[in-house]
Every structure is written in C-alpha cells, then in structure tokens.
C-alpha cells in the first residue's frame, strides 16, 4: 500500500496517469496498440521528450529556457550542411551536438554569469539561434544519408529502439547528477535563490550547468529529429520550446522551481504527443479539432496542477511543522 501511496503522491503521477489513460483510449480507437505504433510514437516524439527533459532542468532552478526549439533547428541544419560538405554521418551528428552544447553554454553564461533574467536571455538567444539556422540553410532542403534514418529507426544492443537509448543517455546523466551534492543544490536553488546563495551554493555554476544540460538535451533532440526526417528544415524546432514548457508543467514541474523532476517532463511530453494522435483518430471535423485538443489539454493541466497542489499543501504543512 505504501508503494501505491508513494506513487500517487509523486509529482509526475498525474501526467503518467493521463498518458496511460489516453494511450488506452487510442488503442481502443485504432483497434489495438501495435508494436509499430509504439515504434513510430517513440521515434517521432523522442525529440519533444528530450527537449522537455532539458527545459525541466532549467525550470527546476526557477529559471526557464525558451531557446531550445531554436537550438533543435540549428542542430538540424548543422548536421545537414556538414553532411553535404562531405563529413560522414557520425561526424556531422557530432558537430550538431557540439553546436548545441555551445549554444547551451552560451545561454548558461548569460543567465548564470551575466545574471540576465533567463526568460529575457533565452528569448533573445532563441531569436539569434533561429537566425543562425536560417542563415546556414535559408530554405528547407538538403538531405542526410538514409543510413542515419535506418540507424535511428532501428535497434541498439539487439532489441532496444535507438530513440529510447538516446533519451536514456539524458536520463542516466541526470540521475547521476542527482546522486551528487549538485543534485540537492539544484533543488535548493530552485526553492530559494537567496538562501541557496547564503548557504554557499555556487549559483552561477549551477545555472551554467543546467543550461548546458538543456543545450545537450536539445542537441540530442536535434539528432533525433534530423534522423527521423533525413533532411534539413530551418524552422523544424520552432514550436518545440513552448510545447516543452507545457509538457514540464503538465508533468508536475513547478514553474516557481524546486518541485518536480525530469520524469514529469517525459510523461508530460508523451501525453501531449498522444493527445495529437487521439484527436486525429477520433476523426473529428477539422473545425473542432483544435478546440477539443485545447479542451483536453486544459483539463489535463488543471488536473495535474490540482494534484500537485495537494502535495504542495502537505509539504508546506510538513515544512512549517518541522521548523517550528
């Protein structure tokens, strides 16, 4: 019973529940969930999930990052352009990943060291990154060898789909960070910047780290998307930034920082993605599709916030009770 209770009170639980319920509904509507459904679901949405993981990390320290979508676009055009310039696929992908890391570090530098408000800073850098992407590849086009797509749509170690591994890299990295003192510091910083600073936590370094991590996540997302489409499009990630923040919030991550975890981002993003499938499978008239999608989303957000709120209350009670 204890386990169940713990699961229910988990921040990410509402999002997980929503995802599982809607997955079930989708299965009923399309007459059973096939393996091929899961495969295409994960390969299409791995990018969105990675970006959600990245943005969750920045939200946890009471910041945010709205430039990740632009970084995804940038990675995409870097990979395509590098490949066409004669680099091999792995080299091109590495270049893409490096450029994403650089972007993340740049964000981290501005937010952490220059101490610019993260929303403003990443709003500005998002325009800049999107601009660079457009500069490198002004029009959709180009192509990457299909071996890249085959690798991505295939398995690693025999049976695990490649996108799962790519997401897994981020998850494992984050779990490792959480095991370090740094993990605790991140939550402390998210809860209260001043107290964290007063306790000797290196705020600048932490902010630098989470934005770099977010950059890495966007880089992996860029690889996922590039491999999935095997072509270049300078605006491919443009809608991902906002979607990822929504995903994190649905996943029980508090925009005020310090509450939630990357599982929230993962399940939130998965729920958002399955929602799209549901609305299509329901075969609604095109005029009401957006409305229904928005309505379900609104209900989902409300439910998850309400659930998280209850926990907030108990936590506050506990905190007050503990201190006094």
């Amino acid at each position, binding site marked *: 019973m204890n*386990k169940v209770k713990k699961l229910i009170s988990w921040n990410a639980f509402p999002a997980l529940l929503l995802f599982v319920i809607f997955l079930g509904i*989708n299965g009923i509507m399309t007459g059973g969930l*096939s*393996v091929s*459904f899961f495969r295409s679901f994960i390969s*299409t949405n791995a990018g969105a999930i990675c970006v959600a993981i990245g943005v969750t990390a920045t939200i946890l320290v009471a910041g945010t990052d709205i430039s990740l979508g632009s970084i995804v676009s940038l990675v995409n055009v870097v990979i395509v352009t590098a490949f066409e310039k004669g680099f091999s696929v792995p080299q091109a992908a590495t270049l893409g990943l490096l450029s994403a890391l650089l972007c993340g570090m740049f964000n981290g530098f501005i937010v952490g060291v220059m101490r610019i408000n993260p929303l403003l800073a990443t709003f500005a850098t998002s325009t800049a990154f999107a601009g660079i992407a457009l500069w490198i590849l002004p029009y959709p*086009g180009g192509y990457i060898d299909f071996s890249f797509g085959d690798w991505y749509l295939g398995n690693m170690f025999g049976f695990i789909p490649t996108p799962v591994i790519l997401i897994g890299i981020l998850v494992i990295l984050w779990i490792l960070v959480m095991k370090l003192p740094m993990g605790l510091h991140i939550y402390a910083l998210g809860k209260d910047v001043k107290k964290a600073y007063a306790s000797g936590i290196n705020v600048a370094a932490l902010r630098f780290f989470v934005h770099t991590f977010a950059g890495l996540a966007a880089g992996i997302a860029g690889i996922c998307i590039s491999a999935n489409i095997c072509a270049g499009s300078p605006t491919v990630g443009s*809608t991902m930034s906002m979607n990822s923040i929504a995903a994190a919030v649905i996943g029980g991550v508090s925009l005020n920082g310090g509450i939630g975890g990357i599982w929230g981002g993962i399940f939130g993003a998965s729920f958002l993605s399955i929602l799209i*499938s549901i609305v299509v*499978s329901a075969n609604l008239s095109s005029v009401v599709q957006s409305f229904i999608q928005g309505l379900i989303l609104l209900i989902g957000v409300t439910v998850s916030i309400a659930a998280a709120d209850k926990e907030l209350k108990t936590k506050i009670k506990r905190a007050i009770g503990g201190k006094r």
Partner: protein
Amino acid sequence: MKKRVLAIIMAGLMAASMSSVCAYAEAEEKTEGFYIGLSNGYWGNTWRAQMVEDFETKAEEYKEQGILSDYMISNTNSDATEQLNQINAMIDSGVDAILIDAVSPTTIKSAVEKAKAKGILVVIANDPAAYEDTICVCGDNYTWQKIQAMWLMEQIEGKGDIVKITGVSGNAADTIREQANDDVLADYPDVNVLTSAPGNWSQTDAQSVMTTFLSSYDNIDAVLEQDVMAEGVIKAYENANKDIPVMTGDYTKSFFTKWAEMEDLNTIGVPYAPGNATVALEVAVRLLQGKEIDESNLVANPMDENMINTIMVAPPYVVTKEAQPDAAWMEGLENTEAISLDEAMELLKDSADTAALDGYMSDEAVDKLFK
C-alpha cells in the same frame, strides 16, 4: 519503489501491446469503400480553410457515392512533429491513402516511409515535395504567373517601363513564378524593368515598396505583381494621388469587388485555387482503383528535377473585364475557363470577403489524366 510500480505498469502495457498486434490483411483490389486521410500542414488563413472545405465537399460527394467509406482530416499550424504524429495516427487508423500538404517539403520522410511500408498510397497535395514512389499534385505556379505576364505584355503592347513586386525571396513558389516572368519578358526586348523588390506576399509590404517606387520613378507604365499584394499597390497609388496604370491583380472577393467599383482599373485575376487539394483527392481515388496515370501528364517535381511524378494543376479560371477565351495566354489550357469580372462576382456572391475565387477539375477532366 515508485519505479518498481512504474516498471510493472510499463511491462503490463508492453505485454498488452504485443498481444494485440494488428494483422494487416493484404487489401483486395477494390474499387470503392476507400478510407482516405488529409494531413494539412498550415491552418491559419482563409485560403487554407477553403482548401479543407473543398476537400470535405468532394469527399462527402464520394462518400455518398460509396467510393469512400470515410475520410479524416488533420490540421497543424506549421508544427512538423505534430504533423508526423498526425500522419502516424492516420496510418494506425488503417487509411488506404494519405494526402499530405507538408509543413515543410523535407520533414515528412519517416511518415512517408512508414506509410509506404504498410502499402498505403501517399499523394503530396498542393505544395510540392519530392519523395520516391509518391505522386505529387500541386498548383501550377509557372502557368499561373505566365498567364498574367503575357496579359500584361499585351496591354502595354510589348513596350514601356514596368516595375516588379515579387513574393518571398527564395520561396520555391516565388522562384518558379519569377522564372515564368523572366521567360515571358525575354520575348519583349522593348520592355524595361525599372526595378524589382520583394513584397513578401503582404499587402502592407507591397504598399510600402510601391510607395518607394512611386517616389523614385516618374513614369511607370505597368506593375507586375503577384496575387494578394495587388490591394497594397492600389493603396499606394491612391495615397500618392496618382492614376493606377495597368497592373496584374488578385483573386479574392474583396479585390474583385474593388475592381468592379473602379471603372478605370485595368487588371487581371487568376486564381491560385484552394481546390488543388481536391484534385489530389480525385487522383488518389483513381490510383486506389488501380488506374494508371498517363505518363505524358506527369512533369518533373519542382523540388527534385529527376523525379517525374507531378501533376500540375492549372488555374481553373482567368478573369478579365470581358472574358477572353481566344487570347494568346489561354492556349493549351484545357481545364481553364476564361470568364468576365461579372461572372467572377456571380461565382463569389455567397462567399466571404476574403475568400478566393475557387474551383477544381471535374471528375471527367481528371479521368483524362489517366490511361
């Protein structure tokens, strides 16, 4: 601990999924009862709303005839990932064919591959995109612009100073349209293009460009522009208080209304019709019925010259003040009707102000594309 519960849930899900793998029975050659999906990559202007509406009208007609058992439509606002999800959902719903108007011509590869692997017919609709083993049915930008340029040259009798306002530089449609302009103008050495600037298919941009032109040049004999920018050009002339020379025009109801009110305006309206996607539906149904396209009707894909898989849909109408069916620009256009301004106004009488003059090929006309 919560992770263990999570693992149990996940394992349960996977087991459930394994047991319910759908066996896709190979479809018999059938001639009716098809299930077709349309994935529309942009949904934010009247034109696209009209495109979807046209598609629905025709699909309903086919449904009544029994040719379609059902159809589905999904829209996204330029979100490439969302479109892939939507197409995947359509594939899992068991459609026989998918029509795709892609967010961007390059972003739908994985979905196209998946559809093809399941034996689903993929037709690229409205905006060109190049994928192996697909058919592309898109608007004929070249002919569309050529008609207007030829008309303009006839109006100024092949000589004079003209200005050009282009669309969004680098956009595939704009490149093709400008190619058509260049090809037509090449035959008229006495026509001098004073200047050319992009108006980004925006009324306001076109207005400011035209205002600049008007202050820079004393004599402009004609304005060569593309569709929606026409009203911006007119406004620039009105603000400068100058007489509007002969110009190419737009094809929305509001433009035709304005034209009808302005006695002296000499212009032409050629619709770039939202019905293009409906032609894609008509083609898709015939392909599903096992008919074959006559290769002579296929041209190179605008996105990949080596891929001969494209049906270009010519404009349904050419609107001039008085209908000119025998004009030089009508030559070879079997499916295009020359109509007068009054007739165009009559066709649009029940439409909204922003609606485009619209039409699509009849079933008989589409049949002619096939063997």
